[in-house]
């Protein structure tokens, strides 16, 4: 009695967390939440007829990340600058080189954090995504960005509405 394989469409907005990577896929009659760890995938289904509401709630996680990264970048560049400046004052050649290498390492680390800050800022505000069914409200680990959640809603909402306008199975 094996059933034909289902056709799934990838939805925008992957998410990653401590429990692995998460992505939503759309089938003809249900939404599939796939939580992948290294080699395993766990599935959770939401039948489109049962979905009562979808909510993307804006969070301040991305903003706090920007503040934390900004502070670390400022500290990194300040220490790198201080080390470089301190190196110019040292008469000993080995000591000067050691301080400059240290300054270079700190500057490099701060530069990497600056790239992370720019990427985080470009991705936009963060969000939590919820799907409410008769069983209750479930937090989905993806999407984590509000812009992607809006793109997902734009794609998902007409599909759910068209399914729910049909008589129940």
């Amino acid at each position, binding site marked *: *009695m*094996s*059933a034909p*394989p*289902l056709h*799934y469409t*990838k939805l925008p907005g992957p998410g990653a967390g401590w429990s692995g990577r998460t992505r939503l*896929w759309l089938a003809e*009659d*249900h939404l*599939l939440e*796939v939580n*992948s760890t*290294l*080699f*395993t*995938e*766990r*599935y959770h*289904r939401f*039948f489109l*007829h*049962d*979905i*009562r*509401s*979808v*909510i*993307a*709630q*804006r969070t301040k996680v991305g903003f706090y990340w920007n503040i934390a990264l900004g502070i670390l970048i400022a500290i990194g560049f300040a220490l790198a600058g201080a080390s470089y400046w301190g190196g110019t004052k040292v008469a000993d050649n080995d000591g000067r080189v050691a301080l400059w290498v240290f300054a270079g390492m700190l500057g490099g680390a701060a530069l990497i954090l600056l790239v992370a800050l720019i990427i985080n800022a470009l991705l936009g505000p963060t*969000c*939590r995504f*919820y799907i*409410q069914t*008769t069983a209750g*409200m479930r*937090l989905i680990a993806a999407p984590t960005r*509000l812009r992607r*959640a*809006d793109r997902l*809603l*734009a794609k998902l*909402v007409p599909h*759910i*509405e068209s399914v*729910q*306008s049909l008589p129940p*199975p």
Partner: protein
Amino acid sequence: MSAATASIPALACPQCGTALTPDALSGGRASTCPRCRSELHGTVFPAFWKIPADLSGRAQQAGEGEAVCFFHPENRAAVSCEKCGRFVCSVCECTVGTRHLCPSCLSSGLAGEKLPELIPWRFVWADAALFTGIMPLVLGIFMWPFLIFSGAAAIFLALFGWKRPGSLPRGRRRWAAIVGIIGGVLQIAIWLTVAIFLYTSRT
């Protein structure tokens, strides 16, 4: 307040639990929770207004000459199972998405992974082969003594999982298994080359 109104589900702010009016989320526009000021984007669907069906005692007694349930001969048949064709009453009817199944087909579908809608998890053999085939090569020469084992493991995982079901939405991912095999062969070749070099240089 009527019974129907009382059983209308609640819409609450996910952040603070404050009750929201469904109109606040209509039309896909952004709204704000009146208490915690969280910005909310979303939509309420027609299913929100549906009252959950009362499942208790809904099977009807079969009349003279009416089709009866396979499991409850005293009950009138409501639907036929889409897999085996047995008539079942509304108590025995199991709805999986858009399918109507009898309890025995549902349990056999659960046991043998024959219904894709019921599969709870999968081990993706091709991903395991890809990881085992490529990661030791990325880690480099430090992995050399183990390359013979990881290479053999990558080839085994790829071949063992070749015909096994893969990821539910992404399929079997044969390319990943093939890359895993190539990586495994490369690892064994590197291990043999270094082993032969060490042996000949010693003798």
